[in-house]
């Protein structure tokens, strides 16, 4: 079982409302602020991208569903700051001014361009041998679950669990989110793009030739 964020294939969400390409990047000023506060806080170096994704996923299903996109971000951030010891619950109630041991790491305005341009690549050398060839048939794990931490972060969506697909590309060896989201190390392993016929995933696919591709780590896959 996964969490509420794992919604691929779900019924009932209604129509999509396309927006004009000329619409503002941020519909509200606070959206921009929420994004910027989250990014700047990340540069304190107290968590990685997998931890921060998991913080949003760990919002209760009720909150995840009722919160707008940037409410999820800001609420996930508040939880991250406390869970990682950056702030205390008392700080959230009433923050006093004062020195903080992490303030030397504060992202300064003149460092922003360089920090954003630098990025954070996720490929790493790995001593795990590549197991699958391009073109090889594979099956995804079933049930979907983090095998290291019960209820933990994973990137195999439930709609693709136990599905038969074919390796399309090898992306190299990448940090394993299931481990990295829980402070268990980066545990890099081979990452593949795997293509699935729509008929393998859905009871009533729209077209016999349609396909879905997912990026999946080697430990999510078994040979057929």
């Amino acid at each position, binding site marked *: 079982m996964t969490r509420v964020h794992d*919604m*691929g*294939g779900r*019924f*009932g969400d209604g*129509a*999509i*409302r*396309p*927006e004009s*390409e000329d619409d*503002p*990047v941020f519909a509200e*000023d606070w959206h921009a*602020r929420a*994004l910027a*506060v989250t990014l*700047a806080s990340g540069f304190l170096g107290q968590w990685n991208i997998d931890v921060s*994704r*998991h913080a949003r*996923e*760990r*919002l209760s299903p009720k909150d995840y569903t009722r919160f707008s996109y*940037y409410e999820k971000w*800001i*609420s*996930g*951030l*508040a*939880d991250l*700051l406390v*869970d990682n010891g950056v*702030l205390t*619950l008392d700080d*959230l109630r009433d923050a*006093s001014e004062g020195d*903080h041991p992490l*303030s030397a790491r*504060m*992202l300064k*305005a003149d460092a*922003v361009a360089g920090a*954003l341009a*630098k990025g954070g690549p*996720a490929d790493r050398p790995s001593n795990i041998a590549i197991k699958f060839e391009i073109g090889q048939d594979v099956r995804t794990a079933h049930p979907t679950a983090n095998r290291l931490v*019960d*209820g933990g972060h994973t*990137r195999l969506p439930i709609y693709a669990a136990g599905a038969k697909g074919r390796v399309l*590309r090898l*992306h190299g060896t*990448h940090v394993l989110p299931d481990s990295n989201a829980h402070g268990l190390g980066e545990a890099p392993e081979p990452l593949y*793009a795997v293509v699935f016929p729509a008929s393998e995933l859905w009871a009533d696919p*729209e*077209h016999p030739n*349609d*396909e*879905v*591709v997912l*990026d999946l*780590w080697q430990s999510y896959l078994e040979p057929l």
Partner: protein
Amino acid sequence: MPHDDHDHPHALLPPEPALRVKALETILTRKGLIDPAALDEIIDTYQNKIGPNNGARVVAKAWADSAFKHALLQDATAAVADLGYYGRQGEHMVVVENTPEQHNMVVCTLCSCYPWPLLGIPPGWYKSDAYRARAVREPRKVLSEFGVSLPKDTSVRVWDSTAEIRYLVLPIRPDGTEGLSEDELAALVTRDSMIGTGLPKVRS
């Protein structure tokens, strides 16, 4: 470890979202953990400097320059870095080419992964539950809501961005654009055509 056994700390902040953001920004600023001027800089970057114009330049160059297109399809990260496009949420790029036989479309069902250095911050619909839920199961109905209908012989391949690989769609170059400059071609490339929910503009 998942912390499912206590009340979430965020509940201590004001419930109204704009106030919630403001409260957290104030707390972090008082503690010397964030610099409001740095926030302004981040916002300016994604509001004014990095957006779909970058991706449009890449697409236009691929349409105009077959050697570049070849390099782009082989190793997009290196090819777009040569044009100066690299950075957060674009560290591992893959470009997928539309053909008369196959149309590509990109989604992130689990969150909102998107190639920031080439397209900027994703539009609201890309992050919506409806798009995340439906794009993988019924891409053709989704496309119809964007006003796009494909020939019946064209298959659809949907890319669900489940890792740190970021996908950009290379749309089909519109007919009647022979002899156009890269700038003129770039003006035909829409954001949605690079996500795969739209097609390039037709030249008027």
